[in-house]
């Protein structure tokens, strides 16, 4: 058991390091910071340089409505970007072992298939979590300047409860789908299509009022996105079904992850058997 934990630990650490030394994760992080920065600058400018929180709290109803509209216009862009770039940032975590011909060396170690998959997954997750923390902090500081003082707890909840499970589950499924792909190019294409589909379908229905099976199954976790992201801006976006549907959505996400993981494990086993 100690060896398996050590192997997962090593893979987590070194996969994270390699991801940060490649371009895509930096692109993911910077692009989200830039997009958030643009939103916040527009918000501040539209308020005539007054911290938006001030006029949202005390301004005329029309001004408040405009501010909320601006934010809810940008949130889907951020959501789409998180899903798209988050998936692409880690897409080649498994194909690259074949691409760079490192697989024979890895296969020559006493590393079980399951540990290999878990190590790859946790390395990608650690890298993405670090990226989200950086985005959260920088965006938060920008927000403090643009909007003015705001409550940190709901803001943190938006990221930690809203973005984190959404990204981890979506990225996890995308990474495991990429495990089946023989080439990096194919992996990128599949994950791109997958993420685009999830994002488009996730933003199609702007207000999830009832339980919708397809929205629950969507790996983009639209219930989570709407409840924590849009709901942060306007509580009216929060589904009247309450947090239970959030737990249901995340639970389904975990089942999807497990399913994809099992298929990836079987696929690796079949590949080894064919050789």
């Amino acid at each position, binding site marked *: 058991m*100690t*060896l398996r934990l*050590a*192997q997962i*630990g*090593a*893979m987590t650490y*070194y996969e994270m*390091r*390699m991801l940060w*030394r*490649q371009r895509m994760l930096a692109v993911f992080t910077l692009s989200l910071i830039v997009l958030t920065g643009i939103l916040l600058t527009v918000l501040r400018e539209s308020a005539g340089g007054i911290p938006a929180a001030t006029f949202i709290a005390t301004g005329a109803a029309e001004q408040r409505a405009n501010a909320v509209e601006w934010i809810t216009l940008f949130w889907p862009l951020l959501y789409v970007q998180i899903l798209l770039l988050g998936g692409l940032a880690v897409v080649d975590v498994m194909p690259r072992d074949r691409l*760079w*011909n*490192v*697989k*024979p*060396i*890895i*296969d*020559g*170690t*006493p*590393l*079980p298939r399951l540990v290999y998959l878990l190590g790859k997954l946790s390395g990608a997750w650690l890298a993405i979590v670090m990226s989200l923390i950086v985005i959260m902090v920088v965006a938060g500081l920008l927000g403090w300047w643009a909007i003015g003082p705001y409550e940190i707890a709901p803001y943190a909840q938006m990221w930690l409860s809203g973005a984190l499970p959404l990204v981890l589950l979506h990225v996890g499924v995308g990474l495991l789908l990429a495990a089946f792909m023989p080439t990096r190019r194919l992996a990128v294409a599949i994950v791109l299509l997958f993420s685009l589909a999830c994002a488009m379908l996730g933003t199609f229905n702007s207000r999830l009022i009832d339980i919708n099976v397809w929205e629950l199954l969507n790996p983009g976790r639209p219930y989570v996105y709407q409840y924590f992201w849009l709901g942060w801006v306007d509580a009216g976006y929060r589904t009247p079904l309450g947090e239970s549907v959030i737990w249901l959505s995340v639970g389904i996400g975990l089942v999807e992850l497990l399913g994809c993981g099992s298929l990836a494990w079987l696929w690796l086993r079949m590949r*080894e*058997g064919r*050789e």
Partner: protein
Amino acid sequence: MISISDLTKTYSGKVQALRGIDLEIGSGMFGLVGPNGAGKTTLMRILAGLVRPTSGAVRVLGNDVTTPQGKLATKAVLGYLPQELGLYPNLTAREFLDYIAILKGVTDRSTRRQQVTEVLQQVRLSDEADRQLKTYSGGMKRRVGIAQALLGDPQLLIVDEPTSGLDPEERVRLRNLLSDMAARRTVILSTHIVEDISQSCNDLVVIAHGRVLFRGAPRDLITRAREHVWTINSTGERPNNGLTIVSTLQLQDAVQYRVLGEPTGYAAAPVEPSLEDGYMWLMKNNEQ
């Protein structure tokens, strides 16, 4: 230490890479030589647990490598250098070796650090250890590959074309390193370079078309070619008559050919055969 019985491997139902190999390999340095496509790499990969045989039995240190448990047990004591070597370009050599060491089971940090330092010294990469691998030359990458195979103090070392890309000095150094390692473990060395075998192996196998053509000591292979190796100095055309030309040397006023066979009709001088001559003689007779 290694027991192979009636081993066959057929790829995609058509290409028969190994055809009924029977071998027993003990400790020491064991050479595996043969032409391209002979089945050497397939045999190495089966022994390393990377490829499943089509039929036959393979036991490595008592472990059946055709079972999942046997494979893992074998890999726990294995050092493997593949023919097609790949490394993570964004890691430094030290990081890469540290990573592989943990995967191989060297979980204690101080032991791992010591081993990584030692293997870097053995392959003379200590000064470049903190550079990213994408900045390394082909020969340096090969040395990193050798270093990772040495981690974990393996009981079985399988090295496929280890001297590929190395300059002569590095080749000699590596041969000496592998010979030192063979004192207390089994080292299986697969190579096209017969000289690597002659300098370091006391037991070798010649494989061609998936079959064992020869098993024994290098001197026995050399003996087979005795009285069949000649030099012919010619100012005219190349010797023919069924002779195999092993090497050609440009002299001042003639060309000296080293040939295998019966030099009927030529003024030929007998020479002592080398291991390369023995190998070529074996291949020549096998083709006939």
